[in-house]
């Protein structure tokens, strides 16, 4: 951690030369360090925020593994994987645009930020498509939730996983009871799925908003090799949102994809 900044008695001159230097900072360096430290701490709070939900998720997954695994299998693996790649690409373009700013290449910056937005919005669009499917399959708690029959039948194909033997299948009473249980416990999975991905999506939307502003600033030439702090810290935020997804994806989509299990 850097100690106090160099004392300068030409502070007014510095501020005059560098309009982006706010009055309460003595040097651009100090301002950049402060912004960066602030964003890292903010991301720390975000880790704690998502952490609470991860904690609840992990506990219930341990308690109700078969139901969680079966519900996880209803998430579209291909679409989810593609979406993950899209998001990672968006982080790549952000990093590249920071590099472009460091090299003073305005056009490249803007082009890369444009692609970041495209990837980001694609991610959100694909998410909406996935959620739409969940709605059709009656997998959204509160909205006609049903995993036992109809389009959202989880039981079919997952009998072994869910412990539904012939014995149970042939006994309507036992079957009904087991189904009630499956209905409840999978609902916990979906509740947490929507809470987690919903919270993530909200953060993505905020991120897109931030990057619209950043893109406009880049277009106006506000970022130079000496000063591109807003781009840098916005990039930090974006990378964080990406990392959250990288945790969410295996936890939600990849619980038990063993073929034939």
């Amino acid at each position, binding site marked *: 951690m850097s100690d106090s900044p160099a004392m300068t008695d030409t502070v007014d001159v510095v501020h005059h030369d560098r309009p982006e230097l706010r009055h309460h900072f003595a040097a651009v360096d100090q301002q950049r360090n402060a912004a960066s430290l602030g964003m890292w701490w903010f991301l720390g709070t975000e880790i704690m925020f998502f952490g609470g939900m991860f904690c609840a998720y992990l506990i219930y997954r341990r308690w109700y593994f078969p139901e969680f695994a079966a519900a996880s299998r209803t998430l579209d693996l291909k679409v989810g994987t593609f979406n993950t790649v899209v998001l990672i690409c968006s982080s790549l373009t952000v990093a590249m645009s920071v590099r472009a700013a460091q090299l003073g290449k305005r056009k490249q910056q803007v082009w890369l930020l444009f692609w970041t937005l495209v990837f980001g919005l694609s991610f959100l669009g694909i998410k909406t498509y996935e959620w739409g499917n969940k709605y059709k399959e009656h997998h959204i708690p509160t909205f006609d939730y049903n995993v036992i029959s109809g389009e959202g039948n989880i039981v079919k194909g997952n009998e072994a996983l869910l412990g539904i*033997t012939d014995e149970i299948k042939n*006994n309507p*009473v*036992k079957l009904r*009871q087991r189904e*009630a*249980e499956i209905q409840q416990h999978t609902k916990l999975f979906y509740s947490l799925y929507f809470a987690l991905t919903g919270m993530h999506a909200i953060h993505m939307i905020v991120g897109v908003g931030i990057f619209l502003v950043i893109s406009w600033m880049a277009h106006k030439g506000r970022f130079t090799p000496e000063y591109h702090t807003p781009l840098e810290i916005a990039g930090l935020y974006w990378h964080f949102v990406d990392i959250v997804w990288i945790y969410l994806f295996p936890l939600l989509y990849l619980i038990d994809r063993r073929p034939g299990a």
Partner: protein
Amino acid sequence: MASSHAFWEDALYVFLVVVTLAMTALIFTLVAVFATKYRRRHGREATQIEGSLLLEIGWTVVPLGIMMLMFAGGALLYFHMRTPPRDAAEVYVVGKQWMWKLEHAEGQMELNELHVPVDRDVKLIMTSQDVIHSFFVPAFRVKMDVIPGRYTTMWFRPTKTGTYHLFCAQFCGTMHSGMIGQIVVMEQKDYQAWLSGGPVTGSLAENGQKLFQQFGCSTCHRFDVQGRGPNLIGLFGKPVQLQDGRTVTADEDYIRESIVNSQAKIVSGFQPIMPVFQSQISEEQLNALVAYVKSLSQAPAGQAGSPDLKSAGAESQSPQQ
């Protein structure tokens, strides 16, 4: 102070009070003395003192030591309080907004009142029908939360006859402060008299036996030959080997869970075919069934039924056809 716990709790409490008073007196005195002796006076300057490592170590280690004594005393007492004696008389408790329903093992039902004999261990097995409550008897110095969906237990041994407050100690809604009652501690003979006086609907275990037939449990849990479910004779209190390799003890919670959520723990060597009774059985019925299964471990050897669980388990493989 009317239970065996109370004496020790009060002793610990007094120790804490003494330490608190001593510390408080020490600080108050020091502050008063320093403020007076070293009050602002012309011509006398303050003496700058950086600190003293010795003092810092001293006033870190000494309080820590005293606190470790408190911790040890408290932990020992707590351990004792959370370990019910084996032969304690059992009472099932159901808390609901805003009353206490209690049922003795002999079948006696009470509302907001509990009669118990003096100098006998009593164990309460409690659950809630709605929100979290807490069973609190100040005179006995005991308390335990009562939670929906699971059992919590608590025990005490009353040492003085009399009538004592029972309070709900976890906020539970409008009439939280009205969810109160009393514990009536009686001489042994008076208690026996009270027991036989009231309406008896059959002991809890007898009720449980009827339910065992009614819900079809005996179809799989047979006592003459090895059925599709584990033999329950002698089961209670014994270790059970599960399919995933774990070993658990067949206590009340285990029995209860096996009825309401049978898929949670599958016994090794058996199929997960037991139905889930969650929405079909009331709390009182569950209590009766648990009491019945427990009673199967109290039958003397050689009773009608199978050999004990271990040999039965060792012989049986998958009980499917």
